[in-house]
């Protein structure tokens, strides 16, 4: 049984999805989705345990030996990302039970859960597979279901947001296929570990460099790196609340993982940093993303949109860590994958509670909510503090390692450390605008407005508690992240 864990990781949510679709009853589909996502989390944790104890787990689909057959290859890096994705899936699923009943027409609810589970299995699949073409297939499974999920949002602009994401996402995915095809032409292999061995022999070829470019642009479209982020703000702002919480905490994280896997494991750190100068390409983009998007976020009046722009800025931090080209920088990136999932998950779920009660997340509509919905807004405040990077929250740990990485490089990189601090202040400004509205202004809405139901608050507070817990005791998370960073820098073979 434990030998089959890698395939079960995908099979369980993938099979639960069509069952959800044929179930007529919304609640039944909801609980099936909860069950499937919890088992996915249990499997992911078991896999992480296996990898920590015994090293790389390799699973051969249909017993075909790689590189001929498809291999699922779990090392510390993707075991870590699997846990991130699966735990967010497991927290958002019970949250969506009530939230979705409020935001989506009842006849569409079973289909919502089908798409949700498909998206989850697609994201897990991208993470777990050791085969390049498999990555593309799972990428499209997760993307197509994500387009459907976003279009379920109540405002009609959700439709145009989903359409725009579909166009940009498909272009990104097609770029990735071109890159994979060019690599196949040069090496005759699609297996990642095999490619990592074969590629150094053809480093000089222009085809490999072009493949590198195509893969890079394709993945950066998916992870919404500035200036390829145009699809993200509207998609997050108009999607149903649980979808936003789930997408914001998983989809871009998996794309960052893809970037790390492609560029560090397959092409190798030496090729990426020495030959292709990846760090020098990513550094300015990351810095512009962090500064400009934090600035844009300050001026948003729709709080969901505000957080969406903040997400693009936070992705900038992750890429910034990568552009340090050091183990500490990568540790910061990998830590921030997890930590940002926790904070944005908590924040968007708190906003979902607000939508549930007052139907809007306009900053003026949220005036005075601190008294009406104390638990919801308290969750928002803690999530916000984490976003700023206040000590005792996970945000602090990420920033700590990021600044540590910058100072480690010394010289002009000290300016980068200062910039990280400065942009934290910008985060404080946009979080403060919401806090100010919620706590220092008078409530003007319906007098009967009360706290959100427990089934929404409980998952939200699970994430808030995780924000605090992993902010205080970061030994375990930082340890795994550093181990993963070392594996990435060393290449896939070791």
């Amino acid at each position: 049984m434990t030998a089959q864990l890698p395939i079960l990781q995908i099979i369980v949510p993938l099979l639960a999805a069509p069952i959800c679709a044929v179930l007529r009853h919304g609640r039944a589909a909801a609980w099936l989705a909860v069950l499937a996502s919890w088992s996915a989390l249990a499997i992911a944790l078991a896999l992480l345990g296996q990898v920590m104890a015994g090293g790389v787990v390799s699973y051969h689909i249909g017993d075909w030996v790689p590189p001929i057959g498809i291999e699922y290859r779990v090392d510390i890096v993707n075991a870590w990302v699997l846990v991130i994705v699966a735990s967010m899936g497991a927290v958002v699923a019970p949250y969506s039970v009530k939230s979705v009943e409020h935001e989506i027409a009842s006849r569409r609810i079973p289909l919502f859960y089908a798409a949700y589970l498909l998206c989850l299995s697609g994201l897990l699949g991208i993470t777990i597979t050791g085969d390049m073409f498999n990555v593309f297939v799972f990428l499209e499974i997760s993307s197509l279901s994500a387009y459907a999920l976003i279009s379920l949002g109540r405002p009609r602009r959700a439709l145009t947001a989903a359409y725009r994401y579909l166009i940009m996402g498909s272009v990104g995915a097609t770029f990735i296929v071109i890159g994979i095809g060019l690599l196949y032409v040069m090496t005759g292999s699609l297996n990642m570990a095999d490619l990592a061995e074969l590629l150094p022999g053809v480093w000089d070829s222009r085809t490999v460099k072009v493949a590198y470019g195509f893969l890079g642009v394709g993945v950066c479209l998916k992870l919404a790196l500035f200036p390829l982020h145009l699809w993200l703000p509207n998609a997050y702002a108009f999607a149903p609340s649980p979808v936003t919480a789930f997408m914001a905490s998983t989809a871009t994280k998996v794309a960052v993982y893809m970037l790390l896997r492609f560029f560090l494991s397959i092409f190798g750190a030496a090729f990426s940093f020495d030959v292709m100068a990846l760090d020098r390409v990513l550094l300015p983009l990351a810095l512009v993303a962090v500064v400009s998007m934090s600035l844009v976020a300050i001026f948003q009046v729709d709080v969901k949109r505000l957080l969406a722009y903040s997400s693009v800025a936070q992705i900038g931090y992750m890429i910034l860590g990568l552009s340090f080209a050091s183990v500490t920088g990568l540790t910061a990136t990998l830590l921030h994958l997890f930590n940002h999932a926790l904070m944005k998950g908590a924040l968007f779920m708190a906003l979902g509670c607000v939508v549930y009660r007052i139907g809007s997340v306009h900053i003026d509509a949220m005036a005075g909510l601190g008294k009406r919905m104390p638990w919801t807004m308290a969750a928002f405040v803690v999530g916000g503090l984490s976003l700023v990077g206040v000590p005792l929250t996970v945000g602090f740990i990420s920033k700590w390692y990021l600044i540590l990485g910058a100072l480690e490089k010394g010289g002009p990189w000290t300016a980068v450390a200062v910039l990280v601090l400065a942009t934290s202040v910008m985060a404080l400004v946009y979080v403060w605008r919401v806090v100010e509205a919620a706590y220092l202004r008078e409530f003007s809405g319906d007098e009967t407005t009360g706290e959100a139901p427990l089934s929404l608050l409980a998952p939200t507070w699970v994430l808030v508690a995780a924000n605090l817990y992993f902010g205080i005791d970061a030994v375990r998370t930082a340890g795994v992240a550093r181990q993963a960073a070392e594996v990435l820098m060393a290449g896939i073979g070791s």
Partner: protein
Amino acid sequence: MSLDFFVSHYNYWVVIFLMMVGFYILISRGNLIKKIVGLNVFQTSVFMLYISMGKITGGTPPILVGDGHGGEAVEHVVYSNPLPHVLILTAIVVGIATTSVGLALAVRIKEAYGTLEEDEINRIEALVEASE
């Protein structure tokens, strides 16, 4: 670049031409259906890239060639690489799925806005925002 090089790589020129045509339609057209058509042309160029790179001049289809009596396969038969063709079969299915989701979205956008022109939709949204 000699003429010989140009001619012998003609499949890549076709691919690049189609890719750019598709990409141009995708970017320049405001009509949501035309955008999807552009996306399709763009994706088709990638299909052709994969298919043409698996083809070997004079290669047969990758089928076991027997001696007619159910005996051993004849060796030294040059055959085309079936793997890229199979991969692209998957990619075609994915392309169809993308197209259908895109068209379904276009139908719902038409129902919601009464138009499929991007600038019209933007104008409607700007009016709604201004009136709020």
